[in-house]
């Protein structure tokens, strides 16, 4: 249990998020993978705060803020997705191709 492991964990989490983002065709699924990526960052913060940083509170504080901010971001995202759903009657990103060159 040292810093490197935590960083690797976070990085893997981030990678999984990216992977999910690429693979998923379902909007909600994509939102969740984004959540994963954000939380990977959180883990970074916490682990740095725990191991190295000389003001440890800052990192923790930051991650809490991040959670809050992410929450409202997701809220808006869901709201938008709902309006989306009203139009398209589906949550498949492949449907979102009306706007293009």
């Amino acid at each position, binding site marked *: 249990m040292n810093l490197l492991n935590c960083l690797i964990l*976070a990085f893997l989490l*981030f990678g999984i*998020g990216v992977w999910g*983002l690429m693979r998923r065709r379902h*909007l909600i699924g*994509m*939102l969740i993978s*984004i959540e994963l*990526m*954000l939380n*990977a*960052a*959180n883990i*970074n*913060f916490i682990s*740095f*705060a725990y191991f*190295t*940083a*000389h*003001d440890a509170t*800052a*990192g923790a*504080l*930051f991650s809490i*803020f*991040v959670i809050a*901010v992410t929450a*409202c*971001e997701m809220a*808006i*995202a869901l*709201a*938008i*997705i709902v*309006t*989306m759903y*009203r*139009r*398209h009657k589906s949550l498949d990103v492949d449907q*979102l191709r*009306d*706007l*293009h*060159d």
Partner: protein
Amino acid sequence: MTNFAIPNFILPDVLLLIFPFVVIGIRLFVTTQSKVPWRMANIGFIAIFFLLNFIPLASGNGKFFICNWKVDDFGVLMREVLMVSALLGMWLSKDYFEHGADKKPPMHQIAEFIGAIAFATFGGFTVVSACDLLTFFLGLEIATIPMYALAAWNKRDQYGSEAATKYILMGSVATAFELFGFSYLYGFSGSLHFNEIQAAVASGSSPLLWIAVLFLFCGIGFKLTLFPFYTWAPDVYEGAPTPVTAVLSVTSKATAIAFLVVLVYGPLSPIQDKMAPLIALLAGVTLFVGNLGALKQSRLRRFMAYSSIAQAGYIMVALLGPATTAKTAIIYYLFVYAVSNYLAFFVFGIIGHHREETFQSLRGLSKQNPSLAIALAISMFSLAGIPPLAGFFGKFHLFFSGASTGHYALVAFAVLNNVIALFYYLQLIKAAWVDEPDGHLTPLRLTKRQREVIILLSIAVILLGFVPFLSNNIFAGFMN
């Protein structure tokens, strides 16, 4: 012991923070048709803009409020840019609540709309006055999240919702990148505060730092629509309501570039020269791709999207220069860019209220309404950077800043790209001036406000250029 008395230099910020609540609050007590919130909004924005002008441009570190809310010269000037953008965006949006445009139904809840704009603007304020990563991050989010909402404002428009979806999905990913970058930066320096980060960066560099830089640039590259993170922009610009597009293209860009300026000339200033290749590459590729994309467009807003992508590339050029030059150049350019862009959007708006927002519907404009055609030509030539219009001087500042550290090749490339840019701006002017109208033209009605704003902006575009007061004042602000 810090005192919590509110010093007058953050009065505008405080006002801007409480004022959207006021506007939205009033709306609860009046009828939907009432003009009160609108008037309030006008008064408030204008008041804030004037208050900002009373803040003396402090030199050096600027003044602090509880040690991590900094108001320095760059901050104040940036605030003014943002306020100008917000004000113009609000004026532009008014008509879209009265009747629809570009085959979209009219929008609703103007008060909330204005409130959202105000919040976004406040986000910008926060970014420029941040002294630590946390405030910084919060500012960026405050600036971004209302934009998502704004993009989807027109609930009855399917394009709007699609645009918003794309926007928010990619925006969140970008936020994730940023956050990741922040976390590494924090890990590298062990602190959130800019001064300590700067000290750490100065003391020595490590892979952590560079991963952080990479992720930060990629994250902000999304908001600044740099290559290859610009992909959302054309779709969102086209899908979102026109006033939102305008606000996006100015406010969010201004915020993003402010973010970069604060980073590059703040915590990361010791390694600016090492970042130079990255910045130069980003700038060059972005403006090239932006110009190429705009070549064969037929829809106005999408066209403007590409042009604004190219503009972002031009702005990046300035980041290569020393602090004062770069800051002056960027602020001045943002002023000019805001004015020219809004001028274009006002004209498009007037067209859009009666026809589709395409090149087609510009045809015969010069015959039908010469003054409007002239305004359009002025804004286009200004964006293309043709003297004596302001755009040229803006670009000149940027290139000057870039060249002052000897990046002649990049500057030459950027200037060469101006030819391509001129080509597609001429395409638009051709549509308005040369092409004969096909069939019957629906008459264009200009409200008094629209006419006044257009005249005002046209004069501004013409004068801000060779009448040197703006550029000189900004520069004086940084020099003294």
